[in-house]
């Protein structure tokens, strides 16, 4: 029985080929590339701190075996902007509205916002809440997060 597989995938626009153990999840694989925005917290796909986009769909990295990335395109929060460069409007919106405290959950919320605005460029409060049901913020920055999503909509218009 093979305990590892060779996979090919795109990571923030770069082609990657890697031998990966079957029991490794996506968060562990991303850590090997020093990508630390997706974080395993609850370990059960319930808190959303590990949210990334796979083929533009938001998924829980902690529940996804890394081998399942084969042939896919992966975007993490690090793919939205790079060091000393202009932030993505969603990231800027989170800063403008002070939408985080400890920020352990923030990359997950930002990637979720990315997915939301990709499919619904001008969501209502209710739609935002429905979409974020699976993302938890223990510091309770929810009101600011809702404001940040609206702010992102405005920033992305320009």
């Amino acid at each position, binding site marked *: 029985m093979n305990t590892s597989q060779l996979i090919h995938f795109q990571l923030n626009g770069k082609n990657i080929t890697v031998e990966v153990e079957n*029991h490794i999840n996506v968060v562990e694989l991303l*850590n090997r590339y020093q*990508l*630390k*925005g*997706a*974080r395993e*917290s*609850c*370990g*059960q796909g*319930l*808190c959303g*701190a590990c949210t990334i986009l796979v083929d533009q769909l938001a998924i829980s990295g902690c529940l996804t075996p890394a081998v399942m990335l084969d042939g896919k395109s992966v975007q*993490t*929060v*690090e793919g*939205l*902007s790079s*060091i000393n460069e202009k*932030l993505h409007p969603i*990231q*800027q919106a*989170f*800063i*403008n509205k*002070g939408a*985080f*405290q*400890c*920020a*352990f*959950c*923030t*990359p997950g919320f*930002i990637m979720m916002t990315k997915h939301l605005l990709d499919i619904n460029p001008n969501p209502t*409060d209710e739609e*935002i*809440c*429905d979409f*974020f*049901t*699976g*993302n*938890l*913020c*223990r*510091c*309770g*920055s*929810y*009101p*600011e*997060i*809702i404001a940040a999503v609206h702010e992102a909509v405005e920033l992305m218009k320009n």
Partner: protein
Amino acid sequence: MFIGKGAAMIKNLSEFGRSLPRIEARQKVSGSAEYIHHFTIPGMLFGKIYRSTVAHGKILHINSTIAKSYPGVHSVITGEDIKKIIPNPYYGPAFLDQPILALDKVHFIGEPVAVVLSQDPHIAEAACQLIEVEYEELDAVFDEIEALTSSSIVHDELKPSGTFPDLKHLIGRKQTNIALDFHLKHGNSDDAFKRSAHVFEHIFHTQQAMHTPLEPMVSIAVPADNSITIHSATQMPSFVRLEIARLLGWQENQVRVKSAHLGGGYGAKVYIKVEALVTALALLTKIPVKISLTMEEQFYTISKHSTTFKIKSGLDSSGRLIARDCKVYWNGGAYADIGPRVAQKSGFTAAGPYDIDHVSIDSYEIYTNLPPAGALRGFGIPQLVWAYECHTDMLADELKIDPIKFRKLNLLRNGSKQATGSIITHMESDLVLDTLSKKMAWDSNFDRGNGVIRKGRGIAIGFKASVSPTTSTAVITMHGDGSCLLAISTVDMGQGSDTAMAQIAGQTLGIETERIKVIRPDTDITPYDMGTLGSRSTFHMGNAVKIAALDALDKLSLMAKKAGLDEKISNSPSTILQKTYGMQAGTVIGFGSYKPIYIPTDLVTGESKNVTPFWMVGASGVEVEVDTETGHIKITNMINVVDAGTLVNPKIATTQISGAAIMQCGFTFTEEMLFDDGQLINGSFADYKIPSIHDVHFPIENICVTSSHDTGPYGAKGIGESGTFGVSPAVANAIFDAVGIRITSLPITPEKVFQALLRKNEGEANHEH
């Protein structure tokens, strides 16, 4: 920043009170902010903890043979192994009762018994399942009231830490589960009750709950020759250094503790959590060791006390409170952690923010066979406010006085004596209550509805004394271009302390906050601080930072004078340093240390003339809808009002108050650690529900009243906990207002509300049992 005439410029610059984004905001939205969660060292071992499966028992045999032979396992370590390098491996801030790994006995289900080490965390986890432990089971006790008289004794003998003079009387006590008893006698409540026109007594309960920081507790120990470095998600780097040095019998400078951004703390990451264990493992194996707890394991590590609070009040015929008896029983679980301090330092406020001449308080920290309880956002205050503010509304209802008028009639105000005898100052309780009343339009008619959905509104107010005595120190290093490093051991766990401290430094130095870099806590570099807890940092560290900045300015002035620079004109640090050293060289260092005055409480009377450097007060008001067919409660409006002194950063301050109130919504409605014979049955987010965005999607207004604290830095004081105080009782009071049922235990579940409605409809007593 200019020295000399330029000092006038300082007045024009207002860094204090500026709502700039957190200084680390970019790192936080880009995913690059540093957390210990991600920290690794090449070649390090991962530890996986084997935990007790019995609530109380003698360890007869630990069989780790199969686990040790599992491919990839480095070793399996038990408590007996740890004794080889730490002969007396017990730790704790108040009581030296907690072994690094269980020795001889286990005291709760989930207690660490052994650790499997491997370079692969998956192997460590798999091998951990192969450990077998035989126990001789002992009777266990779980309820705090039962534990008072139970024949089951959790610890054979009390072991208070010798360093606290006020705990010395407890040394050697046997045959008791009472870890600490705190007593306060103010006036003579027995006589006052006899004189009272009305006497009412009620009992309230709160549940055991957990902080659940999204970054679970994590520590890494890196051994070296005669020294060790511990990277830990801790709120208390200085304490960890001291306690590890004490355990090892080393000098403090042989232990280096580094922290980072914390993915939440809320009191979960104070004192020793995983640090002692990784230290012992690293010293035994001579290899770096990392232990990352899972979300479930956090529930076995620390929690919020469940409580029973019996409160009795005597009133005169006008509705003035003249006597109050408080008996508070704190379920501390199997190890004391900081629980005894919760029982004592919050216990003395158990009578609430009311001016009562005769008060008696008995507050007990009790051992049981449950996971340990410590500090959670409020240090016991939310449990107390729950009881005394539900009780307050019940009194007002009995006397047919409006709840706000009743509070105003009895409120503890500046100039009056709190139960300890300390005179209240700088606590704007009237302003807080008046602001809340106005914002809720309390005096206008409120439509309570008449169908299935009924509406109600309620308020509650609570107060807290800042923990004392504690010390903070700060170092400011100034470069030739005027940019600065600020070295502090305050840990930014999301409350925004890095930003606030940089603003205080900037204000004092007369430079923009953005020109100051705050150094992450590192005990080799950042000077001593008691800890980041109890809303103490803005006040204590803020003062230390201000003093350090003034010290740096003094030193620059002196340099300018020595260098012969004209004092009448403005000189930049760059000019002063160039003139002094002949080139762009040199450094100016300012040091600040702050420790407020404190007088300990008397052991017999519980009195003190100066029990705290500052008082915090917070109130919440809510409007709710009660679904009388299902018992579901929906908040439709929430207003939180606090006195936080002047605000360093209004935007961050408001977010923090809001977040505290939202967190408290979890403890109000859904969060409760549930046990089956001592076994936690809901240790995951699947079953233990913290608030999600839908749960708290209602209008929330957060207000800080205009106030200023004379001894705070630029008038500031603590803010992190005040938003939690009033939420739970405000909800219970609103439910009573809506449907006339009284919930007396947290959390307020639909089942409890529904059953209380049934009882009411059946004409039974409307008190919950």
